[in-house]
């Protein structure tokens, strides 16, 4: 386990994001299983995913997945690259920056439809 400052937070965030993703995954497996009950039942579930509150919550999921993935790469570099431990702090900064950079455009696509912003992927053809 990492002791200290950014190392401890990066570990804690990795754990928290992992548990959050897992919790979502369990719900997600159930909602996809609704496919077996036909289009009406399944589409009701999808309608829920399109609501404002769920869109905002899914931003948390996206941020969590991105952070967990990129920090996971950092962890592997620390484990398998001899110089990894030396650069762990700067790698953490890179992880945070890349997470935010990837998150922002994805967030636009998720939140955009609420405000009618052009995303090119919705029913109205916007």
């Amino acid at each position, binding site marked *: 386990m990492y002791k200290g400052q950014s190392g401890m937070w990066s570990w804690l965030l990795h754990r928290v994001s992992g548990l959050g993703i897992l919790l979502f995954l369990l719900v997600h497996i159930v909602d996809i*299983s609704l*496919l077996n009950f036909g289009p009406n039942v399944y589409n009701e579930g999808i*309608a829920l995913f*399109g609501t404002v509150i769920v869109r905002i919550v899914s931003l948390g999921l996206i941020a969590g997945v991105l952070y967990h993935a990129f920090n996971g790469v950092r962890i592997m570099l620390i*484990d398998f690259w001899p110089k990894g431990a030396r650069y762990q702090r700067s790698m953490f900064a890179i992880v945070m920056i890349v997470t935010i950079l990837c998150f922002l455009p994805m967030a636009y696509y998720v939140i955009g439809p609420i405000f009618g912003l052009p995303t090119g992927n919705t029913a109205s053809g916007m």
Partner: protein
Amino acid sequence: MRVSTGYGPRPAGGGFETFSWYFFRISGIGLIFLAIIHLILNHVTTDVACTSYQLISIRYENPFWRLYDWLLLTLALLHGMNGLRVVIDDYVRTRGWRLALQSTVGLLTLAFFLLGTITLIIFHGANVGPHCILNH
């Protein structure tokens, strides 16, 4: 815990914990691509409200997507549940609770794996219903 030469410390005993350590990292590499592409396909290239029964039916006509999603399901579930096992291992010390919680983790893993796998195998969709679901 012995330290391997030149690299970070890792459980070197060769037992289940060693396997688990490598499994996190190997499944993690696969999951990076599987999960992020999955997010892009279902939130970016298509709005989530348009991931309807109709869209999924069309997508799942191609067995590649069933296989892709099954791989994502299996790796994510095992990776995540193994993580939960580690977290419980870290914080729960009394024997009774350890037995109860860890066996629950195992059972949940099996149950959710079966639910997802069965859905991916038997689902036979139809090109019916709206392409996008508008909110009520």
